[in-house]
């Protein structure tokens, strides 16, 4: 298929059946609306494009900056679109919680502003929170900002009322599904789709999913936060249910491993929430029903999120030559040397002195003649074997003599005959009045 511009590729995403052998529902056909196929990777491409498209002409001449309160997919889509149209993009957020998305935004040239945390010594007279203040600045007319305002902008809902919703009906041969399940972030996708489906068939059941409170699923809100969303109208949903990040990840794993669908956490959450809700309905059914849920984005951006919550998924075999593998016997076998003896030893035998502290600290002050290999890097080098000959005596130094003792133990275990650790470290060296130099 040929397109003149990548924004024309937005929308018209496929609707794909989930194998009944996976979801286990007997009377329900479950379909995934594959929003992850949008060109910038998520359901938010539609909203982002619809919110800015009419405001782009002349924006560059007016020197406008596109700005949005977003730490995720909306920011990503807007950053791409802004870049295509020669506009700067600025993302304002409470916290950049997903490092991959932060890096991607920086790669795309976005400016990211993180708002300050709450005051430790509260001033109750200051009801003007930083977010409200920021909102006022970027919303002022003629202020040089093209503020897309996704939580309040009706064009966010419209993008789905014009696109996502009608596409689902068309792909179901002109019928609305009986159940529609979606995660709620700005409520744009769920409200837009629900409006169209209900218009077609008022009997459609709409299930909104939010994160459990104090849990975190990137891209969606919890049950309190959702009330801060201007587009959120509780009447849209027949029911609002909470899902945990654990459920979202379980769902993600099912989609990723069994359904060929590389969904992110909210896609997984929507799947898991859909199956959880539909299982109750399924038992009572006597005729076939159809259900649709949204897969909002892709899994690749959430590796740190997944690693933090399910480290076992990334289990790697422990590497043999590491300080973590040291036994108490290994540690006991390590040789240490006091400051006075070490000075003598340096003068007589000229051991290689390796300073394991950060380059930053080494630059400020170090033992004359020492070389600097920061401990992490030294650890990496040892995975490959001894980095110096066995005839070369070595003195390891670190701040207090703890890490150097561990590495001395490791080198000894690896067969080095004369490696010693400076007892008490550079601190003892300094406190003994021994010489430290800087370059």
């Amino acid at each position: 298929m040929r397109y003149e511009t990548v924004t024309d590729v937005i929308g018209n995403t496929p609707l794909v059946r989930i194998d009944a052998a996976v979801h286990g529902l007997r009377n329900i056909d479950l379909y995934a609306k594959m929003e992850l196929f949008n060109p910038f990777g998520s359901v938010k491409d539609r909203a982002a494009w619809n919110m800015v498209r009419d405001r782009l002409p002349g924006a560059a001449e007016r020197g406008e900056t596109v700005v949005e309160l977003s730490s995720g997919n909306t920011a990503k889509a807007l950053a791409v679109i802004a870049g295509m149209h020669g506009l700067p993009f600025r993302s304002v957020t409470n916290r950049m919680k997903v490092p991959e998305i932060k890096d991607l935004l920086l790669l795309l040239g976005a400016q990211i502003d993180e708002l300050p945390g709450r005051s430790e010594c509260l001033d109750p007279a200051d009801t003007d929170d930083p977010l409200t203040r920021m909102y006022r600045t970027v919303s002022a007319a003629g202020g040089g900002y093209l503020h897309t305002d996704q939580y309040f902008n009706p064009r966010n809902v419209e993008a789905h009322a014009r696109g996502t919703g009608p596409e689902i009906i068309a792909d179901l041969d002109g019928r609305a599904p009986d159940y529609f399940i979606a995660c709620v972030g700005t409520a744009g996708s769920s409200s837009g789709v629900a409006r169209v489906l209900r218009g077609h068939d008022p009997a459609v059941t709409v299930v909104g999913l939010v994160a459990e409170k104090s849990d975190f699923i990137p891209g969606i809100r919890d049950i309190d936060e959702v009330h801060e969303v201007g587009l959120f109208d509780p009447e849209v949903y027949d029911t609002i249910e909470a899902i945990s990040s654990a459920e979202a990840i379980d769902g993600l794993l099912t989609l990723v491993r069994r359904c060929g669908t590389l969904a992110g956490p909210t896609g997984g959450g929507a799947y898991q929430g859909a199956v959880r809700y539909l299982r109750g309905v399924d038992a009572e059914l006597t005729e076939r029903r159809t259900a649709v849920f949204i897969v909002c984005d892709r899994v690749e951006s959430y590796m740190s999120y997944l690693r933090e919550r399910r480290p076992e998924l990334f289990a790697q075999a422990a590497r043999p030559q590491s300080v973590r593998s040291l036994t108490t016997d290994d540690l006991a076998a390590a040789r240490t040397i006091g400051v006075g003896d070490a000075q003598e030893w340096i003068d007589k035998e000229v051991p290689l002195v390796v300073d394991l502290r950060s380059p930053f600290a080494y630059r400020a002050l170090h033992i004359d003649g020492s070389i600097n290999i920061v401990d992490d890097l030294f650890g990496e080098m040892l995975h490959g074997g001894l980095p110096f000959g066995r005839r070369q005596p070595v003195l390891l130094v670190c701040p207090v003599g703890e890490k150097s003792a561990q590495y001395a133990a490791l080198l000894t275990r690896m067969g080095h005959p004369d490696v010693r650790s400076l007892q008490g470290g550079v601190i003892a060296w300094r406190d003994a009045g021994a010489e430290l130099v800087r370059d």
Partner: protein
Amino acid sequence: MAPYLQPRVEDDLRSLLDEHALLHQLVDGLGSPLNLVLPDRLVRNVAAFRAVHRKHHLGGGVWFAHKANRSHALVRALAATDAGIDVASLGELQHALAAGFAPERIMATGPKSPEFLWLAARTGAVVNADSTVELADLAGIVAAHGLPPVRVLARLSGFASTGTNVLTRTSRFGIAAGDLTGLWETLEKHAGQLDFLGVAYHLDTVGLPEKAIALEGCLHAMDEAHQRGLRPRAVDVGGGFGVNYLADARQWEAWTSELTGAVLGRRPPITWNEHGYGLRNEGGTVRGALSVYPAHRSVAGPDYLDRLLSTPSAVHRRPLGTLLLDSLYDLHTEPGRALLDQCGATALRVEEVRGDLVRLAGNGGDVALEQHGVLMDPILVPRTRTEQAVDPSGFFLLGNLCLEADLLTRRKVFLPQPPRPGDLLVFVNTAGYLMDFSAGDALMQPTARTVAVSRGGGGWRWRLDEQYWPVTGREGTA
């Protein structure tokens, strides 16, 4: 479930609150409101901060931010430990000296009068300076009076972040970290008067990322100083480690949800006059931000310091604590609130109960929950123990001032059984800022007396605050 916010009460404080007869005797004899302080717990809290230093192999000191409480007993108990004290006024400095702090263990912070600077310089306290002008003034005092050099820290603010742009509230304190040339020149010019210990910050935020950026900024400032030939050796990370006030995170979550519901009119109000604590209803959408202290905190106090030191530097990709250690720097902290965790409580007598209104002998200045945005329930200590069925109902707690706004908390407070005149309501964990920071004598109402309580002889010993010294007089027989 009633929207409880039950306070976190630990060990000594917990058992003290079970001593109903003692508490009633004390309030009968000394009046309501009455502050109780527990000096022994303060000593244990210092040890917990010390343990974090040890874990990271860092030297340096824990300097108690005196401003958080004026009690003599607490300061004297602290003088008996290895902790330092951060004093923010001439009065606090005199108090610390009188309590037994040697000047080496005193640090002067905050806005300083010439008298405050002179006494700090004369005695040999550390001066944590807010500006280069203050450093120059101090040097002038030292030179004019022929005093020995004074150890100084330079407080910095306005640190730049890398990658993302982490915004911070503008601070009225500190030297702009972006251009330190003026600072180096001042220190070089007055090298005979000022012994430059290092740099400092104190940020009024619960946000760890902001503090990590400030600490990293300090490390860079130290490096710059070394390149100029100065020899600083310590970084002071200020206070603000926080306290967890509540026993149960779920109650906090439930309460904040209920408040959102109440602001939207979806449930009956749970606050006086439908106060929203910063939230408001605009056409069915909640606007504003919850403007209260985060009463439940999973990471606070020493754990928060540990977390900060374990945070990797954005530039060097190495934990900040390790970078401090690598550079052989000492770490100083100035915890106020966090050191006073579980160190006190304030008891108020119930005067009158009228429907859901409970009037107390004390006011919002005596227990400054509203001023500091701390939300938690008091504990009911009935005059006579009765085994009543637990039937929680909600009350508003009114103070003794003839002001419409004088409530101890604007929350509707749920108690396991209705209070009666003569009962006590005890707010726990008030030692940090909630006790005497804002107390006044409006209407000539009495201000609270303070009693120091400690375990001894199989029971509890109490002394008037001014009578407390960390000595028993029986040491000779021990």
